[in-house]
């Protein structure tokens, strides 16, 4: 008989679906409006942003997010009236091109008719969307997809005009949740543009804001670069606009992976590859200029650094960083723990990515969400006699101490890192990743 599923969680590595307020907040000009209890989105801020590389906020994020702060009155008599007042004032007080109402646990449980409140404003011409994201229905990654789909259905609208052959919709990590998302989006846009594409990135410093969202139907295809996140979005867009998608499950890290990634996208798009090849050549030359320098340290450093590593984190960073270290650097992968509650239907496909991390090197991956069990597992791994490297979160500090490991924070929760414009993906990111790991190794 199958053992009953373990359900409690200590030290969660994700927020609840209200954390998807930060999916909205990451769109320049968009304003989340929270429809639930008085502390919900404030709590998520700490997991998503503040205690995740101290990312901070811009626009309508952090303390600036409007909310109903629903109290006893709204629970007993319904919260529609209070929500109406908050929306009405938010539309006047907040600067915004798009307002997204996120309804949490309490309005869902008491059965508020939120849609009709929001609809009234949409019919008056306000750019406003409603996403039902009670925390008991899923985590912030589920919420991210719900919010994106709600915006597509209630704001983007129907397809008008022709598709543009070189325009791509890029769907990758969840903003704020992926600690280095700002840098990741910059690098991914940079390399795709370098290869000859125009890119809708939707989030962060490189996004044109809501106008980019309006352009979704104009793209030739959707590019999903993540093991499972956003596949639901791409499938939805395929149904809605007949728009095809290309799914590349592993974020490229390092020259070889990034070059292969670009060639795959160019081939799928069927565009001329001359520009891409020129770009690749230049990028590769620069990459190896630095990688070559790094060889001295790697070959000659007398005082040792970790050779065996374990990783804890969301599926996207987990596979991308594991593959790079195993395949490009030759670190020995001891164990990989995916802590993001990957949906069951994607688990086999995600697991298959670990079958061969490099030629002759297979992974040892498990899905675990409970921090207690994660820490227990880490303490049981056999790292040999050297210093283990743990790529993980602040929750793994104690076990890292206990087994004498070097801990490098690469995901939610990260309170030992201040992250601004940093990325560990693409050409640039791989070098920053090496800098980070080996600076920690030589100073630790």
């Amino acid at each position, binding site marked *: 008989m199958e053992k009953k599923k373990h359900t409690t969680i200590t030290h969660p590595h994700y927020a609840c679906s209200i954390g998807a307020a930060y999916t909205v907040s990451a769109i320049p000009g968009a304003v989340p409006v929270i429809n639930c209890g008085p502390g*919900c989105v404030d709590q998520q801020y*700490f997991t998503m942003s503040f205690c995740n590389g101290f990312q901070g906020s811009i626009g309508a994020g952090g303390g600036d997010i409007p909310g109903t702060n629903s109290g006893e009155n709204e629970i007993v008599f319904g919260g529609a009236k209070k929500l109406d007042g908050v929306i009405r004032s938010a539309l*006047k*007080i907040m600067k915004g091109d798009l307002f997204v109402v996120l309804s949490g646990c309490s309005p869902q449980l008491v059965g508020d008719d939120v849609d009709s409140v929001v609809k009234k404003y949409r019919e008056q011409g306000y750019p406003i969307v409603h996403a039902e994201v009670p925390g008991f229905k899923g985590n912030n990654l589920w919420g991210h997809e719900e919010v994106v789909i709600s915006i597509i259905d209630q704001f983007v609208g129907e397809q008008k005009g022709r598709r543009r052959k070189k325009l791509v919709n890029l769907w990758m990590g969840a903003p704020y949740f992926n600690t280095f998302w700002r840098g990741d989006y910059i690098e991914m846009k940079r390399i795709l543009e370098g290869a000859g594409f125009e890119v809708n990135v939707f989030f962060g410093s490189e996004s044109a804001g809501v106008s980019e969202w309006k352009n979704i139907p104009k793209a030739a295809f959707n590019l999903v670069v993540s093991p499972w996140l956003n596949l639901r979005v791409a499938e939805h867009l395929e149904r809605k606009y007949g728009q095809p998608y290309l799914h590349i499950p592993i974020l490229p890290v390092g020259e070889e992976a990034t070059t292969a990634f670009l060639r795959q996208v160019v081939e799928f798009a069927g565009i001329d590859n001359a520009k891409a090849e020129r770009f690749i050549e230049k990028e590769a030359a620069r990459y190896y200029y630095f990688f070559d320098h790094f060889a001295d340290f790697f070959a000659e450093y007398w005082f040792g650094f970790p050779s065996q590593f374990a990783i804890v984190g969301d599926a996207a960073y987990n596979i991308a960083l594991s593959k790079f270290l195993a395949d490009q650097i030759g670190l020995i992968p001891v164990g990989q723990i995916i802590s993001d509650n990957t949906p069951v239907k994607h688990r086999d496909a995600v697991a298959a990515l670990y079958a061969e991390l490099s030629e002759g090197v297979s992974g040892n991956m498990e899905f675990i969400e409970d921090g207690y069990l994660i820490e227990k597992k880490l303490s049981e791994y056999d790292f040999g006699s050297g210093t283990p490297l743990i790529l993980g979160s602040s929750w793994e500090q104690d076990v890292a101490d206990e087994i004498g490991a070097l801990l490098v924070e690469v995901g939610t929760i990260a309170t030992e890192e201040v992250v601004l414009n940093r990325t560990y993906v693409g050409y640039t990111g791989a070098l920053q990743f090496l800098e980070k790991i080996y600076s920690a190794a030589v100073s630790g």
Partner: protein
Amino acid sequence: MARNIQLDLETVENREMRLGSIISWDGSASELVELSRYEERALRHKGCPGAGKNGEGCRLCELNMPFNQQSMCANSIAACQAGNLRDCVLIQHSPVGCTARNPEFNLAFRNGLERRGIKPRNINIMTTNLLENDMVFGASEKLKKAAREAYERYNPKAIFFSMSCSTAIIGEDLSSIAAEMEDELGIPVAPMHCEGFRSKHWSTGFDIAQHAVLRHIVNKHPKKQPDLINIVALWGTDYFTEMLKPLGLRVNYIMDIASFDELAQTSEAACTSAFCHTLGSYFATALEQEYGVPQIRAPQPYGFAGTDAWLRAIAKQVGKETEAEAFIASEHERVKPKIDALRAKLKGVSGFVLTGSSYAHGLISVLRDLGITVDGSVVFHHDPVYDGGYEEQNTLKTLVEEYGDIPHFTVSKTQPFQLPALLKRVKADFIIIRHNGLAPNAARMGIPSFAIGDEHFPVGYDGMIRVGEAVIEVLARKKMNQVLQRHVSLPYSDWWLSQKDPFILAKHPEVLDEAEEVQD
């Protein structure tokens, strides 16, 4: 005189009912002192708080705003109390999101352990991680399972349960499950009815956590420890020991960082005080009422006047008046030259204080003792009376009497959209702040912030020196804020930024129609 605490009840009454607390008000500090009618409210034991002889003026008038921004809730406050004990475990009976602030409490816990000389480690808070099915079918079995798991994993001396909005709405019977698990596991299991929607202010969460400790952990058969003083605190540095050593007292900090035994022995102490009455009054009053542990009848230990009065009141309690006078005199002499030097450096500087209720009263005294002008302050709520109810504890009145009025005294629960109007009407070279959400916008307006994470920092005579020195460092950071101000903007409409009254929406809701015209 002290108010009536009802420890026989499963949960504590909300602050707004018990004390008449408000979260939205604007005026001068002296007006608020008058409207609070502290003494009158203190006399009432039951019924409508603050009702006068004829029942008039039940409530302190509040400004009802149609717009809100989010901040903390009672649930996360309860977690930051019961979840930060050294040998007890908190189980949050909730979906996973109600635990999302714990990483910050973990930072506070680790820092707190270090401040108190204990090896830092992570907090252990569990969540039952409730899903959709649990909302439909109930989740009591999951909670029981979690309690057994907590017991096996961590071998705790006590377990706390906390209620969330969703578990309260679906009617989870926390108290019965706690009683059942207490029997089964043989350790105290304390339920906390701290669902976020129940109180309009998060500080009710402090009372709920303290109520749980008082009912389930405090030693019911105390053996007196005449040299022990309880200090209700958060994660602050141990500055109290050196201040209380001359009076022959050992400090017992509660509740963050405390162990089960430290909580249990609170009923054995000689007396109780706190770094802030907002936080400590419920616990102190309950100990006084139930176990005869007197609470200190004094304002808080901030600034010269406050610290003097506080030390004298404690000394009187433990019969050390002579020692106290000698200590006070020598401390004044020791710190005076340093404070004079700081006053010279801080001449002409203006500050603005934004913190929880009575802590702000203390901080303003410290700033004014340093010669810093304080013409405005935001308190995140206002308790017109504390549970203690002693006249000597009326901290706002003491502040106004000792240091003069504060012309712009605002009660507002961390609403950043009000900040531009609030900061336009006073001069503020820096802000001093606890809680998140406001300082970043002050920063964007060119004003540096002193985020006072160690709440004990301003305590006592040395506290004034610490604050003065920190303010000088904070003022230097204005350079960064000026860069920000030159290049970034706030996320509010021009119409809103042109408003002068932060409470205009409550006073004249029709301005929203004007806004519509302006924007159309």
